[in-house]
């Protein structure tokens, strides 16, 4: 299937330091694609560039078969993209319900209570985001995705700091979204959880990205095992 979003040959420097030289990100409908990479290697930067939250020094962004000269998140969001940042998505000024209703109202989205039920945040929906624990907040953010019904989701480290039980709910929701046709791209370091969810694995290293293929193929990739998976990869290989 054709990718709905492509960030091709992306280059980006910060203060003279090259973070990305030729990195590529593809979001394919029906797939959960996971982008692995060590801290500071440019995963979040690549995601931000792909969704228009940050400008690239070089490279091409295509969304829905259109090459975008200067992509902007608010424009892409209006056309079906949803970006889940690594920090809090929600405003601290309004309740979770209010913000979910805003999304539903703007995009004629799914029922808010249904999404809250799905993600197990019914008891917290009338609280403000800062009154929620990290895991509850992350689930509430995923409820926003469910309400929005995007065609493409870019989620930056959605599993960070959440307990295994919440991770299970999140994985099943992300996989369900992908099976319904959403193109899902996730970054993170939670290797077993992410490999369980993934249809495709990419590896971001030394300013570029490598398409490793299926989770099984990724685990067989020698350099990926040696330089990223470490002991976990060795254990799995044995």
């Amino acid at each position: 299937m054709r990718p709905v979003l492509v960030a091709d040959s992306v280059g980006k420097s910060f203060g003279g330091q090259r973070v990305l030289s030729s990195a590529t990100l593809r979001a394919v409908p029906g797939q959960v694609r996971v982008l692995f990479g060590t801290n500071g290697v440019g995963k979040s930067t690549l995601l931000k560039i792909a969704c228009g939250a940050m400008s690239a020094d070089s490279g091409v962004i295509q969304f829905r078969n259109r090459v975008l000269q200067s992509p902007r998140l608010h424009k892409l969001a209006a056309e079906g993209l949803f970006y889940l940042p690594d920090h809090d998505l929600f405003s601290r000024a309004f309740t979770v319900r209010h913000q979910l209703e805003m999304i539903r109202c703007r995009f004629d989205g799914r029922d808010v209570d249904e999404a809250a039920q799905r993600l197990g945040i019914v008891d917290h929906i009338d609280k403000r985001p800062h009154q929620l624990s990290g895991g509850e907040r992350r689930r509430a953010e995923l409820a926003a995705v469910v309400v929005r019904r995007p065609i493409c989701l870019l989620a930056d480290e959605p599993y960070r700091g959440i307990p295994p039980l919440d991770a299970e709910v999140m994985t099943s929701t992300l996989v369900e979204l992908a099976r319904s046709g959403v193109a899902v791209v996730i970054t993170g370091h939670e290797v077993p959880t992410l490999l369980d969810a993934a249809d495709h694995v990419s590896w971001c290293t030394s300013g570029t990205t490598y398409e490793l293929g299926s989770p099984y193929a990724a685990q067989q990739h020698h350099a990926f095992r040696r330089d990223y998976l470490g002991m976990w990869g060795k254990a799995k290989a044995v």
Partner: protein
Amino acid sequence: MRFPRLMIARPYMLRGFRLWILTRGLLVIILALAETDPFKLGVTVTLALLSLVIVVGFIDTYRHHERAFLSNLGVSSITLATLYVIPAVAGEATLQVLVAVA
């Protein structure tokens, strides 16, 4: 620019109104202390006041960590600035009419 639906626009316009009250109140105090009529403002001062409402509005937006949320709603910075400034313009216009009538 696409104007957002009322459910999204309303809380930000309300915030713009509160910020206008706050900045206008401060300006009234400052001008009163300077023994200048605080209700008869020149064009430059009015434009500066409206700009200040937008700037404080954006600071408030960052304080509440709202940029990603608003972008995901399809709200651009220009739209947000418009939402903040509309109540300020309306308030300022109303004030000028009231001063003229009085």
